[in-house]
């Protein structure tokens, strides 16, 4: 009697399901694939802002090259507020009409204050000669943003300011700009497919009675970005960036100016490594440039900048240090 009860109590547990055989256990189920290839035309992603349409190419091909010594110190007082002190000693290039480059030795100290909030961003920089660079970005509502950019100087008639109103829609962005010298501009960019976005801009310069219109297109996938821009001022600009791996990007850029019959094309690379970021480029004008930011320690960066222009015989080398985030 006792033995039969104990037998019933100790029934073996049901056998586990047989393990998946071969590849059926490894591959995801087939229904997911169908969802990926079908495009949801009513839910396209929001495109990048019109002025940032070439941002990957600009980040890789146009680092802030300088000549001389640069030292930046950023001190954070709390999460949102920080002060910055910056010293620069070296030559700055003055734009000249002739083909010679005119370099003016300058030295200045720049004091800056930044306030960064999710809804409000205030950045101000003031130089020893009294020039002020101000940037304000304010989210008026969820979709409407006001941006102000100003360079104020002590000399009369040299100050510049620009007000931008940005509206972000579901799959489009539009912007309206008002600037000094009676400058009015507007642009609009729309996603037409998950990878392609098209945009256009118009502007009107009051003081010189000039107006212009331009069109832009951007095609991007995870691995590459291709953009093209045409403007009625006679400028055609194309760019292509390929992300070869997580750490390496290659970029190329082509610009044609119909008024001055100027053609420039450049090719560059961007290595983002753990301890450093190295960007280099070569131009069709025979100019070779490189920019290295090396992380020496937490928050301490060492910067080297070099630009060699064989045709104009202009050699610029700079070094500097950045302390703070």
């Amino acid at each position, binding site marked *: 009697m006792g033995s039969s009860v104990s037998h019933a109590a100790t029934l073996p547990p049901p056998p586990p399901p047989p393990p998946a055989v071969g590849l059926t256990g490894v591959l995801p189920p087939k229904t997911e694939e169908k969802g990926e290839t079908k495009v949801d035309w009513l839910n396209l992603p929001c495109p990048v802002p019109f002025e940032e349409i070439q941002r990957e190419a600009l980040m890789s091909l146009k680092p802030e090259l300088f000549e001389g010594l640069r030292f930046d110190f950023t001190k954070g007082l709390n999460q949102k*507020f920080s002060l910055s002190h910056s010293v620069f000693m070296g030559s700055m290039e003055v734009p000249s009409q002739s083909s010679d480059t005119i370099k003016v030795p300058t030295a200045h100290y720049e004091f800056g204050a930044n306030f960064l909030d999710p809804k409000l961003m*205030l950045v101000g920089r003031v130089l020893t000669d009294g020039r002020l660079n101000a940037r304000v970005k304010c989210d008026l509502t969820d979709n409407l943003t006001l941006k102000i950019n100003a360079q104020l100087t002590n000399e009369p008639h040299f100050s510049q300011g620009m007000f931008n109103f940005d509206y972000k829609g579901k799959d489009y962005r539009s912007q309206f700009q008002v600037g000094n010298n009676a400058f009015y501009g507007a642009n609009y960019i729309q996603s037409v497919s998950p990878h392609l976005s098209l945009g256009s801009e118009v502007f009107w310069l009051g003081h010189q009675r000039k107006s212009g219109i331009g069109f832009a297109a951007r095609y991007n996938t995870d691995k590459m970005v291709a953009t093209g821009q045409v403007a009625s001022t006679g400028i055609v600009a194309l760019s292509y960036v390929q992300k070869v791996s997580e750490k390496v990007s290659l970029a190329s850029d082509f610009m044609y100016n119909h008024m001055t019959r100027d053609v420039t094309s450049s090719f560059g690379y961007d290595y983002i490594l753990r301890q450093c970021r190295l960007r280099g480029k070569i131009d069709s004008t025979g100019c070779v440039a490189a920019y290295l930011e090396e992380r020496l320690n937490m928050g301490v960066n060492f910067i080297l900048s070099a630009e060699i222009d064989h045709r104009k015989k202009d050699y610029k080398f700079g070094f500097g240090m950045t302390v703070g985030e």
Partner: protein
Amino acid sequence: MASRVSSKGKGKAGRGPDDGSTARCVKDWSTWAMKKAKVVAHYGFIPLIIVIGMNSEPKPHLSQLVSPV
């Protein structure tokens, strides 16, 4: 329509300073206001950022503003 336009034109030529004075006043005042706004922004922008920053949470101490550490 044409007569109204022509009389307006004649009127403007006849009474120039009076008729255009409101438009010129507005333009003069707006230029004066822009000049004052530019001076205010030039001197007051950085102090404004510092005041807003010193009043944000967590409140930093005044000595942190000047010390290099």
